[in-house]
């Protein structure tokens, strides 16, 4: 009797509703990706038809009708190089900031600084771009680029070009500044999520703060920190405004990034710069959309790599925060 009553009280409707809603949401995400992909594909169809894979590997860029030539390689390289330089600068600094906030800073300081870091993550990229264009590049050129060029320019080809302020390195450094808040905010959360008993295990053995970080915190948080860095990389790859304003916007073979002080270009910034001029009936327009398609693939590729790296790191020891 009472069992029947209990069974009747259970209501399975909500479960079905939940399942249907969740499935719809999942399908919606897939649909959007397919739509975007389809649109980019159809709009860029002409360029693939004409150039084929040479569009990806070519380095010439000439939109003048009759003499058209389009190659994406310098911009693919520009995107990857600026993003990677930015990542190399941003990751150690961000993890340092996160480490300070989670391990060293007293609560009194931790809260305001964390707040400021999160605030920085919310600053629109055009603001970073303006600051980079009007202030940073000048200071950076006078205090870093020119002295470095004078000292090393003759010996190391990476520093060969006379610095002008609008170049690969300036864009990369501003990119780094832009992704530092994101990476540090996420990393801080990851470090704070390391259970206290993990830290205590090391403290118990008489470890110093740094040793605790090295022995307990870092291995535990490793995959999460990689995830945070990839998040930053994703932002850097797609970043448009600030890069366009600072990278120098070279086109053609000379945009290929061979030196820090050279004018370059990236996939996102060449699209932003030129799509105003492209007429939809020429080859120019499909070429720019083709660059967009490549950018989409680069982003997807980074995400896939991220997943593979995180899986390798977590599988290696089964511990730590799985996935991200």
């Amino acid at each position, binding site marked *: 009797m009472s069992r029947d009553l209990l069974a009747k009280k259970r209501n399975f409707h909500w479960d079905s509703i939940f399942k249907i809603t969740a499935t719809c949401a999942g399908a919606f995400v897939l649909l959007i990706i397919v739509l975007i992909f389809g649109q980019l594909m159809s709009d860029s169809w002409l360029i693939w038809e004409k150039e084929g894979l040479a569009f990806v590997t070519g380095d010439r860029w000439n939109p003048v009708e009759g003499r058209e030539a389009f190659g994406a390689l310098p911009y693919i390289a520009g995107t990857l190089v600026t993003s990677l330089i930015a990542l190399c600068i941003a990751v150690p600094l961000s993890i340092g900031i996160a480490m300070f906030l989670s391990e060293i800073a007293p*609560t009194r300081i931790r809260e305001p600084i964390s707040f400021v870091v999160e605030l920085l993550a919310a600053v629109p990229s055009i603001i970073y771009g303006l600051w980079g264009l009007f202030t940073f590049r000048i200071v950076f050129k006078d205090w870093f680029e020119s002295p470095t060029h004078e000292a090393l320019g003759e010996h190391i080809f990476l520093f060969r070009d006379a610095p002008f302020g609008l170049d690969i390195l300036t864009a990369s450094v501003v990119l780094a500044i832009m992704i530092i808040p994101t990476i540090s905010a996420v990393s801080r959360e990851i470090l704070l999520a390391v*259970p*206290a*008993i*993990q*830290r*205590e*295990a*090391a*403290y*118990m*053995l*008489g*470890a*110093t703060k740094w*040793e605790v970080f090295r*022995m*307990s915190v870092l*291995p*535990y948080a*490793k995959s999460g920190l990689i995830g945070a860095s990839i998040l930053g990389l994703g932002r850097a790859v797609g970043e448009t405004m600030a890069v366009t304003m600072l990278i120098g916007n070279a086109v053609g073979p000379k945009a290929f990034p061979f030196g820090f002080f050279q004018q370059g270009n990236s996939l996102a910034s060449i699209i932003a710069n030129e799509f105003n001029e492209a007429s939809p009936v020429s080859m120019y327009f499909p070429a720019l959309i083709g660059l967009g398609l490549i950018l989409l693939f680069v982003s997807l590729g980074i995400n896939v790599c991220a997943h593979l790296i995180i899986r390798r790191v977590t599988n*290696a*020891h*089964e*511990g*730590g925060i799985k996935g991200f």
Partner: protein
Amino acid sequence: MEMNALDVLNAMKNDEQPSTKRNEPEKEIPNNMTGDGKYKVLIENLAVAYNGKKAIKNINMKIPDKAVTALIGPSGCGKTTLLRTINRMHDLTKGAEVTGKIIIDGENVYDSYINPILQRRKIGMVFQKPNPFPTMSIWDNVAAGLKLNGVKDKSILNEIIEDSLKMAYLWDEVKDELKKPAVALSGGQQQRLCIARALAIQPEVLLMDEPASALDPIATQKIEQTIIELKKHYTIIIVTHNMQQALRVSDRTGFMYLGDLVEYDKTEKIFKNPEKELTANYVQGRFG
């Protein structure tokens, strides 16, 4: 009223004087020392509050050297809290505030000139929940403390690791797979690994918070043998919910209740003939 309070104070002083004069145990602690009869750890007027809320209040205890002292009491009475004061683990807990003294070898570990890091190297701890370093192998887990202390010689490390694992009764189960990740072990094996890790640094004082709670009867028995073996060299403080275990391994037992040390005496006395009714009720399982 004032006279009254003063009288009480004087009475207390007079009470204390004869027993403390020649560095002898306090009145309520009979002189039944094991080992060489010295005290290793003196706990004086110790209190801990979490965010202003008292978890233990005014605890006074003299922990004998080369002996086992057990802490018993119902869940939440403050056993872990008391244990963690001894190696200053509360330094790391937000909102925890410790007052009073812990005197080890004549030095108050809470004195400002004491470096808690050096202090902790002399004190081993086994936590209530097993917490091996998840990314390290079994070997590395046990070696961790030694490496921190600058032991680099592989053969010395191997030797100490083997000894420690044997004392923790884990050696036979893991000797062929020391490179296996520690998290691949079962819960009870992880607990014994943590015991081995604490033993490897050869601590003067060993703090064990329910070290056998995740172990089967055979492993428990072996760990108890180890504890009895270890007390020849070390001072051991063990928290346990198992009355039989306290009776088997300890020389002294402290019974805690709601943050107070209700009674602290020779283990036999606590279990056979306690002074306080509360203690009697608890050890006979009439509450808890």
